């Protein structure tokens, strides 16, 4: 057994002396192949990913810059004024007082008498607060008007330019009276959810035209309403306060994550107060 061992050892020695010159080069080649396979190639692959990430960063930064410059360019007072007029036109809550005020003012201007009327109360506020993009809860009113056809037509015309915005659904003209069905819309404040890296959709020409049209209608309405304690105008204050609360809660909400961690970017989610 010992002779066997000696024999193996001597064989190894012979082999070592014979191939000594090859050992280091082969070891170097082996190590190089390991380095290439385990480090260099994965690094090159990650380099491509880094380049893509860099491109994404640049795109996101561009959007953020545009958003920032757009928001910086907006005046707070202008936004408040626009928000105010839009909230009067489409209230955030059931504005019964505003509705009665609109009807009485328009009927007075048109020279007609308002007979019986009935209100449909609409959906409960908790239900109406969970709204989709284009959903609008409404209050339906059935109204009896007394006057000739021309005056009733004038009533319909003037009502279209009054706030809260109304949609006449049906009209039944009689000889000297009419029965009309009107929808008055409102829209509670929806939860404001947005992604920081989404581009802000700036106000279009149509939006600006709409706001100008509403301002014009409002100025006409204000000329009609001479009494300063009109229910509609009295409601504007509390309604805007409600909105302010919602917007302040947006500011207080934390930013969820940085875009580098999530490809979608941070999502700011805020629930407005449900009414």
């Amino acid at each position, binding site marked *: 057994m010992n002779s066997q061992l000696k024999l193996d050892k001597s064989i190894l020695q012979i082999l070592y002396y014979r191939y000594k010159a090859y050992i280091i080069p082969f070891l170097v080649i082996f190590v190089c192949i390991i380095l*290439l396979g385990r480090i260099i190639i994965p*690094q090159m692959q990650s380099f491509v990913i880094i380049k893509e990430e860099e491109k994404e960063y640049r795109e*996101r*930064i561009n959007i953020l810059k545009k958003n*920032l410059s757009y928001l910086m360019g907006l005046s707070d007072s202008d*936004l408040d004024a626009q928000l105010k007029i839009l909230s009067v036109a489409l209230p955030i809550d059931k504005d019964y007082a505003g509705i009665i005020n609109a009807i009485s003012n328009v009927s007075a201007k048109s020279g007609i008498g308002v007979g019986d009327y009935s209100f449909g109360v609409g959906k409960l506020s908790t239900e109406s607060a969970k709204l989709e993009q284009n959903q609008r809860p409404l209050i339906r009113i059935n109204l009896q008007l007394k006057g000739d056809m021309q005056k009733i037509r004038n009533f319909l015309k003037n009502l279209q330019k009054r706030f809260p915005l109304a949609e006449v659904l049906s009209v039944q*003209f009689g000889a000297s009276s009419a029965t009309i069905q009107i929808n008055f819309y409102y829209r509670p404040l929806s939860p404001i959810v947005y992604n*920081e890296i989404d581009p802000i959709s700036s106000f279009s020409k149509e939006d600006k035209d709409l706001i100008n049209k509403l301002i014009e209608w409002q100025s006409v309405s204000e000329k009609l309403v001479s009494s300063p304690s009109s229910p509609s105008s009295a409601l504007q204050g509390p309604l805007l306060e409600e909105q302010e609360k919602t*917007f302040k809660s*947006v500011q207080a909400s934390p930013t969820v994550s940085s875009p580098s961690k999530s490809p979608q970017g941070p999502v700011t989610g805020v629930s407005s107060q449900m009414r």
Partner: protein
Amino acid sequence: MNKGINLLPNLRKDRAHRRKTVLIVRLTSILFLFIVSIFAITLFIIESQSPIASLRQQEADLLSNLAQLKTKRAKVITINDRSKNISDIINKRTDFYTISGVVISKIPKDVTSGSLEVDLKKTITMSATSPSLLAISTFLDNLVNITGEKKFFSKLTVGGISFQSKGNSYSLTVKADLL
């Protein structure tokens, strides 16, 4: 004596071959080492010059600036939402003033409008009375012309024409579908 018979190994030739092999192996190992070094140095340079860190910082700065404008952004979103809804309401509304005006303007002198009703299905139902059948016919022609213009009505249906001997008058009922 045969000179072609050589019992000693050809040591010189063997050594030369061995030396050549060792040289090739060494050169290959140097080449590998060179390639790996070049790649490593290149990657190191690229990584050290990558703008990701500065971009990340820039983005964080922008996000913190935007965070201060959250209220404004919420207002913009609310304004967009409300103006979209208001546009929908305004565009959806039927202009009863104009439509009733058009219909009334087409009623001849001898014809008296009995009732005019616009229902939820956007259908106008009208009734008119007149002592003259010719006037009724003129009124009907006028309504047909309005329908032909395709501005207000898409369809016109005559409900019926009847004669009331009590009042000695003709009455007409028509239905028109609004566009």
